């Protein structure tokens, strides 16, 4: 077996590892931005900034707007990090996954779709115009990234003949799926940026709406949703490794080391993408997603199916 279900205590380890990965991503991201802007950018100064931000959000008041839909608002905010943590249940770290479900790919997909609804709810809840627009932008964004995302996953599952992440990793013993399914890999990475509403796909929380879904979030609410965003990005980066980059397989090093290195590499690529370009406006992106990306990912699935038939 390439991947095994870990003992029960892994339930505690997985969120910690995910948080560490998200923390490294945030730190690198802030470092790059500070360097570009000529701000105080010593690595430890950036770390201080992160600690300080977390401290502020812990002590600051939360916000009550006029006539909010409190249930939807809180639910939307909380589900973002919860979905990220639940998604990594099926992501193997080296040889171990919290649970290598038989339908692992579907589980991951379902958790990621939760965030789509959650962000809409977080935008709807405060009864604020700007946050509502942000929420609906997320709906539109989901329409643009969900189908390419699913077709990318279907391509992987078809090639491995299984929805189990362990089996998918085992099928990449000789060749990574990223090598012969590059379109699926790229579509997957784009969708990770999409579901974690990360730059350049951050229009739901865009600067032009003064923060969109985040505009009314203060104190602990803000901390939870901002951290959840990074946890989602980290979860997406970690899942790219077993799906496309051969998981923990690799020469020399132990499997957990390969998983770590590959996850950091994918996260590095995603963080770099954040800084390379401005926000992509949905008005411009949705036509491209539907007219270019979806057909391409369908072709990718067909290729995978033909390869499986010919084997």
């Amino acid at each position, binding site marked *: 077996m390439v991947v095994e279900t870990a003992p029960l205590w892994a339930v505690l380890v997985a969120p910690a590892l995910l948080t560490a990965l998200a923390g490294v991503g945030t730190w690198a991201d802030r470092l790059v931005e500070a360097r570009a802007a*000529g701000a105080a950018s010593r690595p430890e100064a950036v770390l201080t900034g992160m600690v300080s931000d977390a401290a502020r959000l812990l002590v600051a008041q939360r916000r*009550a707007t006029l006539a909010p839909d409190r249930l939807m608002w809180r639910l939307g905010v909380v589900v973002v990090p919860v979905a990220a943590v639940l998604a990594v249940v099926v992501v193997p770290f080296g040889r171990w996954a919290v649970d290598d479900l038989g339908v692992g790919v579907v589980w991951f997909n379902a958790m990621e779709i939760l965030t789509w609804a959650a962000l809409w709810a977080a935008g709807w809840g405060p009864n604020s115009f700007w946050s509502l627009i942000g929420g609906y932008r997320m709906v539109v964004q989901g329409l643009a990234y969900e189908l390419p995302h699913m077709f990318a996953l279907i391509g992987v599952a078809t090639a491995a003949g299984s929805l189990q992440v362990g089996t998918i990793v085992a099928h990449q013993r000789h060749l990574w799926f990223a090598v012969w399914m590059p379109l699926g890999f790229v579509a997957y990475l784009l969708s990770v940026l999409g579901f974690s509403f990360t730059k350049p796909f951050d*229009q739901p929380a865009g600067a032009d709406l003064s923060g969109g879904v985040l505009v009314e979030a203060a104190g602990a609410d803000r901390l939870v949703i901002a951290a959840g965003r990074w946890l989602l990005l980290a979860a997406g980066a970690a899942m790219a490794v077993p799906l496309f980059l051969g998981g923990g397989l690799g020469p020399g090093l132990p499997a957990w080391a390969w998983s770590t290195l590959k996850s950091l590499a994918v996260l590095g690529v995603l963080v770099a993408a954040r800084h390379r370009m401005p926000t992509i406006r949905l008005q411009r992106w949705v036509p491209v997603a539907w007219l270019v990306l979806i057909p391409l990912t369908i072709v990718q699935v067909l290729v995978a199916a033909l390869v499986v038939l010919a084997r």
Partner: protein
Amino acid sequence: MGVTMRLVGLAARRPRVLMAAMPGATECRLALEAGLRRRGWAAVPSPAAADVVAACGQVPPDLAGPLAQVWSEVPEPKAYIVCADPPSVEADLDRVAGRLADPAGGPGPGWAASQPEYACSQDDGMGMGVHGGSGHGVDGDGGMEMPAGLAMADRGADRDGLKLDQLHAGLGPFLADWPAGLVLHLVMQGDIVQEATVETLGATPVGSFWNEPWRQAAAGGEVTAGMAARRLAACRLDGLGRLLAVAGWPDAAGAARWLRDELLAGLPTTDAARRFGRLERRVGRSRALQWATAGVGVIGGPDVAARYQGWLADIAEAVAALDDQTPLPGSALVRSLPVPAPGELLAALERAAVGAEIGAVRLMVAGVDVDLDEAVDPAGVGGG
């Protein structure tokens, strides 16, 4: 309380600042932005994300109300400063950090246990928190009791011939990366603007900071062409920084603002050329920025993409002329001023915003880069 106070102390090491730019105080804003950069403090776009409100410049009477509104929306613990004197910005920032961290004085009334949540009223100074209420046109609600006493929205015909709810909202005056003193009153359906009306607040047309060298030359002062070129380059970098921030590219915006401040502080020509070259490659050749801004803009005028390319060309030309020692002629053509009188631009904005998506309107405003410190031509605005 021990843990809480330690957290308060940690938080005070890197405050997050909501900058409220006042008209006629460009220098204060620049000094504050530079001060924040040196300390690694971040400027944030909404009151909920801030713990410091910094008024850049003296607060004119008609902006005091909106500012108080913004202040009420910042969560405790919070602090407020007025930076009205550019050289003392550093001291102001030290003071505000001290106030945030000060455990003896307490972070402020209404904080923590007594009031874990804070409410805000219906309409705010940023125009960013219209929670129904005052914003809506009142419809006859037939004596039915509405949630939280809010009125129902009015309806109006939309562009597809349907009848949809209308929301009366506003952009400004205290919006991040937004011209000081500008308010854009909007009637919205969804995220589409149906009507737009410009209002200018606190306007004391003292003349734009960016036009200063030309004004001095006209008044008989000794100004070299190099000094004017330096100011022009900084002016365009300021506009570029604002546009890039609105377009969601904080890295490039930060780089443009950093170079702007260094230029104003007297960066030598060779360094300026090298650093601008890097910025120009990054921004000028960005297809994503081109894609986001092409076709967005004032009717009949250049689109936002053409405008920022024009700014880049202006900066390149100005950076090449930084060492020009020839005196600026006193009659230096008013039409070549960096910042024109805003009247026509504002009127064009009102027209162009109609039918545009709200994000596109933000890009448009950043793209025309109006400065209300130049005298507003009263005939141009708000007449119709």
